[in-house]
């Protein structure tokens, strides 16, 4: 089958690989119909996630048609068209039992700090991902969900990560009616977090980034105020001034390891890989939120330490809430929002690219070329 093949930092290509097999009685094999490139895939692409091995196939946002099932799979059947949440969750461990499906303890032998994630290095379990013609889906009865009749595939594929992650970012913010919410990052997750902040009753939503076309998109899509931090004297000072010098009620970090805006963080986190990414956005979030405020983190960082002003967390009495999205927990509500027209995920897809052109798709998304917001890869069998 055709599959994306990681060859080293900034180098990926399409190759022929053996088709996946059932390796566990609760596995399914799916024929992929849509597979996105996620902003967090760029951390792998840039070589900043430890234990990202040459030869791996990325991709944790995908939909597909069930082709085979293991002997213990009961809910799914061959031919079902499913969306596959990015977390691999067993449904039986103590964390899954408490609906923390992003923190499963039975899907990732390599690290205890994170559950298994499709195509996301061996630090997240060593699974090949969905940027391929076929993928192995463990615990097929737990998180994978049959796509509701009539739902657009482009909406469905964004329900595997972007929508739940953006929604959970706002949810973890504990937003109260009238709150001012600042979202750092105008990538797909940041834009969705800004959109969802309104659903929780925000009174004002501000997005901070440095990419003009994305800020413009956020202004229209969320809708929200959006500012380029390069045009601000200091983004933290700007937030203070625009909130009566008190700070925002809630700050959301939707940037993560690839942040721009601080030379020190860039050198230490992105060039020398001496910390788990450039923590610039988190630094700003902690300093921009008001005393007693909440910082919500859904951005991805590597497992190594990162420089943040932890003294200010204590002195300001902040609450920090963070997690990988628990997709399965959120899906029923989010499917409802999409079906009712409250959320329109597919409007974020700007590039539909044949799987065979995966190298170019990564370049376009990574270098923010051609006003790319969200690229989706389409395998040959799904193009007919």
């Amino acid at each position, binding site marked *: 089958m055709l599959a994306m093949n990681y*060859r080293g930092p900034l180098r*990926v290509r399409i190759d022929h690989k053996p088709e996946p097999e059932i390796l566990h009685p609760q596995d399914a094999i799916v024929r992929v119909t849509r597979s996105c490139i996620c902003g967090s895939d760029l951390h792998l692409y840039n070589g900043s996630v430890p234990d990202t091995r040459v030869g791996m196939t990325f991709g944790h946002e995908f939909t597909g048609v069930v082709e085979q099932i293991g002997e213990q799979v009961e809910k799914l059947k061959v031919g079902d068209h499913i969306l596959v949440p990015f977390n691999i969750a067993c449904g039986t461990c103590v964390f899954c*039992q408490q609906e923390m499906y992003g923190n499963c303890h039975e899907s990732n*032998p390599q690290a*205890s700090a994170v559950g*298994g994630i499709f195509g996301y290095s*061996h630090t997240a379990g*060593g699974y090949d991902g969905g940027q391929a013609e076929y993928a192995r889906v463990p615990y097929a009865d737990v998180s994978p969900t049959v796509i509701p009749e009539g739902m657009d595939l482009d909406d469905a594929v964004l329900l595997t990560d972007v929508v739940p992650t953006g929604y959970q970012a706002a*949810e973890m913010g504990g937003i109260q009616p009238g709150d001012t919410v600042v979202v750092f990052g105008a990538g797909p997750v940041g834009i969705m977090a800004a959109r969802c902040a309104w659903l929780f009753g925000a009174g004002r939503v501000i997005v901070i980034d440095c990419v003009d076309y994305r800020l413009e998109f956020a202004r229209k899509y969320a809708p929200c105020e959006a500012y380029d931090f390069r045009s601000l004297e200091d983004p933290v000072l700007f937030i203070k001034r625009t909130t009566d010098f008190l700070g925002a009620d809630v700050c959301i970090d939707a940037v993560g390891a690839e942040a721009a805006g601080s030379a020190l963080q860039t050198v230490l986190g992105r060039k020398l890989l001496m910390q788990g990414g450039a923590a610039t956005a988190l630094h700003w979030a902690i300093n921009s939120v008001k005393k007693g405020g909440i910082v919500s983190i859904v951005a991805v960082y590597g497992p190594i330490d990162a420089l943040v002003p932890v003294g200010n967390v204590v002195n300001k009495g902040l609450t920090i*809430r963070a997690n990988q999205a628990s997709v399965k927990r959120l899906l029923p509500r989010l499917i409802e929002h999409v079906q009712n027209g409250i959320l329109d995920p597919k409007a974020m897809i700007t590039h539909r690219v044949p799987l065979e052109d995966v190298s170019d798709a990564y370049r376009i998304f990574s270098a923010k070329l051609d006003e790319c917001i969200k690229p989706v890869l389409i395998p040959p069998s799904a193009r007919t």
Partner: protein
Amino acid sequence: MERKAIDPSQVKGWGVDADPKNDPTYPMKNRNDGEHAGYSWERPPQQPITVEVLHSNERPDVTSVFGTSTPPLGLSGALRRLGFRYSESSYGHWLPLVLADRVSVAEGVLEDLKQGQVPNVFAERGWKAEWEHNRTSLVRRVLVRAVLVSAAVAYLRRRRGGS
């Protein structure tokens, strides 16, 4: 070290200020306090371990399922095995893994050559997309690098000629 059991109900004041509603993890965590029972849930069947699986020493075993992509091999594999001797809290764990990632890039090139394939680095880096959407910048970067390399070569030649 043997853990000495203490019955909390015998501790003076135990639970007097407990407030189950004060749960900042909700709704992320629908608390059932199951973890108080330890690692005791009924585990799914074990996936047969047919490839080498390195597991964190912060857990007692390999998880019920795991990925089989790219098992550890060669020098990078040896470095990864070294890393997994240390806990996830230690640089001894992560630094060998970061180094192994870089070594495996070289191993990947050798593997390609062994199979008679010369990696097309330009295509892998998506230069076609750069050419289509960012041509001026691409040309500028290529020219700057060419000038820098030429200057370095000229400088080295002059030094060699002088000595």
